[in-house]
């Protein structure tokens, strides 16, 4: 519900690239976080959920599967940078319109919450639901 939630997907953040869509994802957190903080990335295109394991995350010239991300705790996602997420999608063309739903959950590594026997990093959630026109 905060202003940075509105920034997670910008109006020009979707691109048609052959058999896939490329989504530019931005952080709703105020500081840089390691890529391992990307704990929940649930995406639906036009109402169809996409398996997280089918996504490819690209940042600073390197690409990762969703399952690779927990080990990337030395790779820092700088606050002004988007991460590019490749989403398999047949038939996407420039100018086509798509409803993009993103449930983003960032594991905040320095805010530990919960009772003493069940301490866990804060999961900072952000929900985006926007209709975008592909570049």
């Amino acid at each position, binding site marked *: *519900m*905060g*202003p940075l939630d509105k920034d997670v997907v910008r109006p020009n953040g979707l691109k048609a690239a052959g058999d896939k869509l490329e989504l530019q994802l931005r952080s709703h957190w*105020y500081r*840089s976080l*390691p890529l391992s903080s990307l704990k929940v990335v649930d995406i639906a295109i036009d109402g169809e959920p996409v398996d997280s394991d089918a996504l490819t995350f690209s940042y600073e010239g390197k690409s990762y599967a969703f399952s690779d991300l*927990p080990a990337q705790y030395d790779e820092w996602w700088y606050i002004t940078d988007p991460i590019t997420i490749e989403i398999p999608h047949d038939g996407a063309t420039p100018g086509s319109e798509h409803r993009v739903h993103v449930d983003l959950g960032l594991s905040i*590594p*320095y805010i530990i919450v919960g009772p003493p026997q069940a301490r866990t*990093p804060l999961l900072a959630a952000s929900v985006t639901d926007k209709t975008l026109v592909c570049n």
Partner: protein
Amino acid sequence: MTQTAPNLPQLGLTLFSLTLEMREPGYTLAGMIGHAAELDLGPGLEMVGFQSLRGWPHLDDATIDHVRGLIESNGFTQTAMSCNLDLARNRAQWMDEQEGIAYLEAQIVTAKRLGFPIAKSAIITTESFVRKLAEVCDRHGMQFGVELHSPESVDSPGILELREIFERVDSPWLGWVPDFSSSMHSIPPSLLAAHRESGMPEELTQFASEVWNSDTTMPEKFAAFAQEAPKLGATPADMGKLNMILTMHGRMDPRRWSEIMDRVVHVHAKFYGLDEHGDEPSIDHAAIVDVLLDAGFNGSISSEWEGHAYTDAVSGWDMVRGQQALLAKLINERAAARVG
């Protein structure tokens, strides 16, 4: 610059106040510090390493010289560098104490290279960790502050434990950074408005407000809210959002800051809005200024606008300027009254 006399608390800002402005097209650190200077938002300057500096804390000499030059050539004085102890950055295996110390030491060293005399962060509350941290600070000649932040108060269990450890370790390098958010008398109107705009049912916001206002401890408030809110129809998502009311805003009497003032190294003037008279509607700034003056505090106070978590309808620049005017007026008037 917004000046106070040298024997009084010194004003300044943390660039965290400008979190939204950092997302604007064309943002650069140089432009931001330059504009802060044009608006006279010093003399103190604080920043969050992981926010303002790409690659933090592993910065080469050229970057150090550049950033230090930006701060000093614009007439600012480095106050505190805000660091983070990312204990769970490896979700599968959290840092142990030794790794935590090394993680903070790297940041303390970079803060010093940038000219900051104080680093601050949360820490692990054990005597062994605090003793190691004191050794690191002593080795580098750096002060280190632990924030006393909402929802904690001077007598919450973790804080009491750390107060006792600080007494036993008794290091001149370690101390507290109390945050105005620990001592609020009401929930910020800007937050209530944000809930309303997001479609939160009014009765849920009202219930959360009632729990917040009750004379109970924070753990009791969390428990009461968790138990009762679902009965009013709150979903888990609603609960998460409304929990912010409890976590981000403490309700401690500001006079209780006096219990820790002998170890305060820096102050965070968190705030969430200014009314038409230039007053903060949810934090008694005059009461806090009195505590600082009573203690003879002449360290730095960073204006820390956090209303950006709730609204982008106002400018962080205007808000910092407004709060500094309020603080300067209160500090100067109340200090003069004491002399008179």
